[in-house]
C-alpha cells in the first residue's frame, strides 16, 4: 500500500504562496519607502513580474531534468567543483535567511508580545516545532501548507481590510513625484521579498503531472504579488512615506493602530501574531526542507541512513547559529544585507546561468549529431 508520494498540480500554488510570504511582509514598506514615493507598489509589481519569469526558468529546467531537484541540477550543469561551491552558497543563503527571519521573529515577539520571555526559549520552541513538521516528510508538509494557507489568507485579508478606514487622503498627492528611476531601483530590494519562490525547484520532482503546474505557478506567484503590493500601498496611504521610513516594522504599527469598533477584542493583535507565527514557521519548515535536499544532493546520502539523520540535525545547528549570531539589531541588519546580496547573486546569476548552460549543452549535442 505504500506508494511513492506525489503532489497534485494545485500544490504548486499553495507551496509558492506559503513560501513567498516571508518576514519581509513586515519590513518591505519601510525598505521601499526609504527610497521612493507612492509609486513603490509599482516596484513590487515589477519585482513580481521578474519573479514570474525566473520561476518559469526554474520550471523549464525542472522539465529538462526530470526527477532532479535544484541542487542536483546545479551539480550537473556547473560540474563538481563549482557546483559544490554553489550548493554551499545556496545552503548558506537558505539557512541564513531563515536564521535572520527567526531572529527578527524573536525580536518582534519580545518587543510587542512577550517582553519577559527569554529569546532563546522562543527560538528553541520555534525550531523544535518546525523541525518536527519538516521531519514528518513532504506529504505532511504539503498537508500542513494546505491546512494553514486558508487560515493565513483569511488573516491577511482581514488585516488588510481593517486599516482602510485610517487612510489619509493627503498621502495620495504627488504620485510618481520622484520620477521613474527610483521605481526601477526599488525593484531589486522588492525582489528580495520574493525569494521564497525557489521552493519550486525543490518540489518539482514530486509532481504527478509536472507539465500541468504552469497555471498554478502563475497563481502561486500572483497572489503574493497582489498582497505585497496591497500592503505597501496601504502603508504609504496610512503613514505617508516620511513617517514610514522611521518605522521599524510598518506593518505591525499599521495593524497595532487598528482599534476594532466592535467591542469584542480591543485590538487585533492576536490575528497578527497568528499570521506572523504561521509565516515564520512555514519559512523554517521549507528552509529546513530545501536545505536538507541540498545536503542530500551534495553528500549523496540515502534516506533512512544514519548519515541522513545526521544531515537533518545539522540544519538545526546551522540555523540556530545564524539566529544567535548578531549581537543587536544593527548587527543583524548588517548580516541581513550580506545575505541579501548573496541571494541576489544566486537568484539573478545562477538561474539564468543554468538556463544558458543547458541551452549551450543542447546546441552542442545537436551539433555533434
Amino acid at each position, binding site marked *: *500500500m505504500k506508494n511513492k508520494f506525489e503532489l497534485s498540480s494545485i500544490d504548486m500554488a499553495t507551496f509558492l504562496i506559503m513560501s513567498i510570504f516571508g518576514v519581509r511582509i513586515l519590513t518591505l514598506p519601510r525598505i521601499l519607502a526609504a527610497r521612493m514615493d507612492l509609486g513603490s507598489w509599482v516596484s513590487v509589481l515589477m519585482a513580481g513580474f521578474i519573479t514570474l519569469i525566473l520561476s518559469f526558468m526554474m520550471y523549464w529546467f525542472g522539465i529538462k531534468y526530470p526527477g532532479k531537484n535544484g541542487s542536483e541540477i546545479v551539480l550537473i550543469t556547473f560540474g563538481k567543483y563549482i557546483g559544490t561551491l554553489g550548493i554551499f552558497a545556496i545552503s548558506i543563503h537558505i539557512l541564513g535567511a531563515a536564521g535572520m527571519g527567526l531572529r527578527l521573529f524573536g525580536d518582534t515577539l519580545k518587543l510587542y508580545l512577550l517582553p519577559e520571555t527569554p529569546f532563546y526559549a522562543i527560538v528553541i520552541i520555534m525550531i523544535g*516545532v518546525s523541525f518536527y513538521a519538516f521531519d514528518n516528510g513532504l506529504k*505532511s508538509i504539503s*498537508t500542513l501548507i494546505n491546512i494553514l494557507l486558508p487560515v493565513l489568507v483569511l488573516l491577511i485579508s482581514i488585516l488588510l481590510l481593517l486599516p482602510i478606514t485610517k487612510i489619509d487622503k493627503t498621502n495620495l498627492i504627488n504620485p510618481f513625484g520622484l520620477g521613474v528611476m527610483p521605481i526601477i531601483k526599488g525593484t531589486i530590494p522588492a525582489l528580495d521579498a520574493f525569494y521564497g519562490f525557489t521552493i519550486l525547484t525543490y518540489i518539482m520532482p514530486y509532481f504527478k503531472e509536472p507539465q500541468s503546474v504552469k497555471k498554478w505557478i502563475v497563481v502561486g506567484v500572483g497572489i503574493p504579488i497582489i498582497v505585497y503590493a496591497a500592503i505597501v500601498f496601504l502603508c504609504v496611504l496610512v503613514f505617508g512615506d516620511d513617517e514610514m521610513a522611521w518605522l521599524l516594522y510598518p506593518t505591525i504599527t499599521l495593524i497595532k493602530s487598528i482599534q476594532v469598533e466592535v467591542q469584542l477584542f480591543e485590538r487585533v493583535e*492576536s490575528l497578527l501574531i*497568528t499570521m506572523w507565527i504561521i509565516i515564520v514557521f512555514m519559512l523554517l519548515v521549507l528552509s529546513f526542507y530545501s536545505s536538507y535536499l541540498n545536503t542530500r544532493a551534495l553528500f549523496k546520502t540515502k534516506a533512512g541512513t544514519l548519515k541522513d539523520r545526521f544531515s537533518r540535525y545539522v540544519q538545526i545547528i546551522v540555523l540556530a547559529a545564524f539566529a544567535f549570531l548578531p549581537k543587536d539589531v544593527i548587527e543583524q541588519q548588517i548580516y541581513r544585507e550580506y545575505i541579501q546580496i548573496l541571494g541576489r547573486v544566486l537568484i539573478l546569476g545562477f538561474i539564468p546561468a543554468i538556463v544558458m548552460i543547458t541551452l549551450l549543452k543542447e546546441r552542442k549535442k545537436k551539433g555533434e549529431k
Partner: protein
Amino acid sequence: MATMRKIELYLYNVGNDCMRLIDKIKGVFRKKAVEKDKLFQYEEFKERYVSKSLKENRDYLQQVFTHTKDIIIRNITIRATKQNLMIVFVDGMVDRNVVNEHLIKPILIDMAPENYGRRLSFEEIRDSFISAAEIKEAETFDELVLQLLSGDTLLFLEGQNRGLIIGSKGWESRGISEPTTEANVQGPKDCFVETLQNNITSIRRRIRDPNLAIEMLKVGRRSKTDVAVVYLKGVIMDGLAQSVIEKIKKVDVDSLLDSSQLEYLIEERKWTIFPQSVNTERPDKACAAIFEGRIAILVDGSPFAVLVPSTFSMYLDASDDYYTRPLVASLVRFTRYFCYFLSASLPGLYVAITNFHPGMLPPRLALAITTTRVALPFPTFVEVFIMESVIEIMQEAGLRLPQAIGQTVSIVGGIVIGQAAVQAGLVSPIVTIIVALTAIASFTLPNYNANLTTRTLRIPFIIAGSTFGFFGIVMLALAILSHMSAIETFGVGYFEDFSPYRLRDLKDTMVKVPASLMKDRPELLKPQDTVRQVNNKSSGENQDEK
C-alpha cells in the same frame, strides 16, 4: 416375523450389554493413559481424527471437556436400524428447537417404515433425515470442537470416521435498540448489537449489491473470535481490502473482546492520541462508509463497527447531517468544527489572554475579570486547572454511575459545586463559565473518541498558554497540526479530505453541499467506480482542480 425381530433385538441388546461389561472390566485394568488435567490446543486437535468407535469419540470429548458441565452428550439408538448415534452440543449456545425438531425428531420418530431392518449409510442420514438447513462434515477434531463451541451441534455415527456439524447457533441476545452513543433526531434509529450475524444482516438489508464482500476471519488464539471484513467490490480502492485483511491476519493475540481492541492492533501509529479509525454503532453510518469505498470491520461480541480508512472530517460528521437540509447541516457542521477547537483550547486561551495579553480585551471586560479576581487566592492557571479537574472527575463519575444517580451527580456537581466554589472565593465565576462552556462544546462532538482527544489536548493547551501566552497556544496548535498531517491510515492521510484541494472531497467536510451536487465518490479513497449519481455530466472532467 415379529418374534424373529424381537429375538434379534434381544440378542443385540444382550450383545451390547456384554460388550459394555467387557469394556468396564477392561477399563478397570487399563492404565490411566492420560493425566486428568491435560491442557488442549487447537493444534493438537488437527492431528486427532474422528474414530470409528462412538465410544472412543465420546471418551475423547469427555476428556477434553472434563470440567465443562454445559456440554451435553446424548446417545441415540435408531431402533429400526439398530444404529448408534451421538449428539453433542453446548447448552445455552444452541437453538433447542433446531436440535429437537430437526435433528432428534426426524431420526428417532419420523423414520419411514421401509428403512426397517437395514443399516442406514452416513450419507443417507445426512441427506434425508436431518432437516436442519446448515450442515457440514469434518474429519478432525479442530473444526469439530471449534464449531461445537461456536454453538453448532455435532453428530457422530457408529462405524464412521467422520462427524457432522449441524448449524444450530441460537442464543439469547440483546434486541436491536436505539443507538446510545450516537443519538440522532432524524434518520434510522437501529443500532448494531453484540451478535455478528445480526450486524451483518443489518448491513445486508441496506446493501443488496451482489458485490458486497463479507470476508470472515478468526482472530484470537484462544477466543477464536469471528471477524467480518465488509466492503463493496468494484468500488473500493485497489488493494485496500487485501492490505486490511492481511493486517488482521497478522494479529496474534490471546483474545479479542471488542472491535476497538482490533482497531488498536491494526492501526499504523501507536503513539498518538488521535483515533485512526471510526467506531460506530449505527448501521446507516457503516453502510454510507462502505458506499464511499471504505471498509467496515465487525467483531463478534461488539456492537461497534470499525470503519477504515478514516479521515479527520469523519469524526465530526453526524448521521443527522445527511438527513437534514444541506445549508442547515453545513452550519451545524461548522459549529462542530468550531467546538472541536474550542473544546481543546478555550481554557488555554483564557489563561494566555488574562496572564499575558490583557490588552487584547476591551477595557470593560478586562476590568470585569479583574474585579472578580481581586480576592482570589490562586493564579488563573491553578484556578483553571482545579476546575478542569473537577469537571473531569464529574464526567467520569457520571459515566460510571447508574443513570438515575448519574443525574444527581451532575446536578450536585454542576450547580452546587460550581456555585459554592465561586461563593467560597476559590474560583472566579468567569473560570466556571469557561470550563462549563468547554465541557459543553466537547459534548457536541458526535464521536466519543474525538471528544476524549479534545479532553486530553486541553491540558497541554493550558500549560502552553500559561507559559508562553498566545505564542505558546499557536505553536502547540501548529505542532498538533504537524502531527495530525503525518498520520496515515492504510495509505490515506488524516487530512486527505482537505489536502490537496479537491473540490470533490471538500464537498463533504466543513460544509456539506446538497446531495444533488455530490455526484462522485470522494477521490481521496481512489474508488474504482467513481460515479455516485447516474445523470452525471461531470464525471470525467473536474478530477482534481478546484
